[in-house]
């Protein structure tokens, strides 16, 4: 899932300062999961904007905002509310904001900061994959060094590892100690005895695209 965080209200009010009438749209998938942009949060944001003297022309949350056809359908069904608005505030990831922005000619603003692709572990969200385009989890015991090592080192650990913790000091474990221990327990340390070649970053050239049927 895409992990997001709501922007401070002041920041949102600042970019909405020239717009009185706003349409709000959220996402019922990732952003709902993280309580940042589901229907309850969209409503709540609407109330906050009204309290600041704005007019909310309408609000909605669909699954999923990264799906162009769904967004097109929703915006056309809500055409009256959308047309009445000067701008659209999107409570979803950067992908969702841009899909809305492609479909509507109105100014579109993000209400969230998009942080990472992550999963929930013991009540906190953690990043485990950074979409590098060439997965090596088969060799590293299912633990990603590209993402979970703060330096993305492929031949680790670095000299900064501190009793199993990463030198960056955010409390995260050193990925290379985890990988080592996992492979050792599986009797597969040979997996990492050879030197890993430098990563081919052309495999992760931005912006990515993959042709296919967009509506699958």
């Amino acid at each position, binding site marked *: 899932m895409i992990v997001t965080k709501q922007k401070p209200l002041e920041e949102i009010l600042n970019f909405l300062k020239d717009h009185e009438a706003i349409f709000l749209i959220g996402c019922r998938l990732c952003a709902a999961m993280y309580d940042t942009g589901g229907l309850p949060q969209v409503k709540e944001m609407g109330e906050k904007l009204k309290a600041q003297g704005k007019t909310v022309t309408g609000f909605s949350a669909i699954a999923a905002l990264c799906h162009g056809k769904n967004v097109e359908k929703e915006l056309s069904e809500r055409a009256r509310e959308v047309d009445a608005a000067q701008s659209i505030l999107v409570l979803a990831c950067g992908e969702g904001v841009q899909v809305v922005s492609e479909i509507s000619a109105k100014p579109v603003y993000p209400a969230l900061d998009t942080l990472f692709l992550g999963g929930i572990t013991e009540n906190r969200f953690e990043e485990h994959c950074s979409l590098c385009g060439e997965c090596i989890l088969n060799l590293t015991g299912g633990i990603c060094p590209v993402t979970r090592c703060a330096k993305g080192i492929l031949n680790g650990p670095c000299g900064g590892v501190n009793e*199993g913790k990463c030198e960056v000091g955010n409390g995260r474990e050193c990925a290379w100690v985890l990988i*080592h221990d996992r492979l050792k327990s599986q009797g597969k340390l040979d997996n990492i005895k050879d030197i890993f070649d430098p990563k081919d970053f052309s495999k992760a050239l931005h912006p990515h695209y993959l042709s296919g049927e967009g509506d699958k």
Partner: protein
Amino acid sequence: MKFRDILNSEEFVITAEVGPPKGTDVHEMLHAADLLKGRVSAVNVTDNQSSVMRLSSLAACHLLKERGLDPIFQLTCRDRNRLALQSDLLGAAALGIENVLALAGDHPVVGDHPSSKAVFDLDSVQLLKVIHLLNSGKDMSGNELVGPTNFCPGATVTPGAIPLEPQLLKFEKKVKAGAIFFQTQAVYDLEKFREFMDYARQFRVKILAGILLLKSAGMARYLNKKVPGIFVPKNLIDELEKASDSSQKGIEIAARQIQELQEICDGAHIMAIGAEEKVPKILDAAEL
């Protein structure tokens, strides 16, 4: 004799380090270099050490070289992608710099520009392989170089790392990638270090033990608490505490350790962090 030739001899090698200034005034750095000249085989030049922005290690190496010292160019992967790393290496070779220490580098968040983008396009093991490639006259894409490099590549190892096993696996990769010499993280517990050397002796590489000059008991405690892989034993802390002049005591301890290390490994790398004037005193006391 050049550093690389001394490495090939049976002689106990002494290296020290200088940090380039934050700014363009190199007087102090050159003064430190003058104090070290003739007393050490080579001088490491740190590369934005601890992710604190300073004058470039390459430029500083050149200045030391002009001054008659044999510099060891510390090169981190933190600030340069593979184009910049190779290009700086070619530049260093053209300036007559012969020794490189390949490092990952600290993460930028621990330094004085925490918002900068961390590069880490390569890691230290891969960088060692690149140095080997350039020495053979090719770049990373297989293109022929007009004039190869001729570097003596080195790397670092933390003999006191916790846990140790992953560190040793990495050490072996660095050996495989062509490191000829290793400069270790500071060692104080020489019995522990002896165990590391018993293991390391199976590889044909030269090991220079890191000697970080202790200035006070407080500093020793700080190192124990804050710096991964460093452990100052209690007897040394007590010694510093009881001494009337702890800075002099630090010099004595360093000298004593260097003497003991002559039986254990191939050399010592003295890190005086800003107190380079003490390095000759340590060497005098160690009768070197």
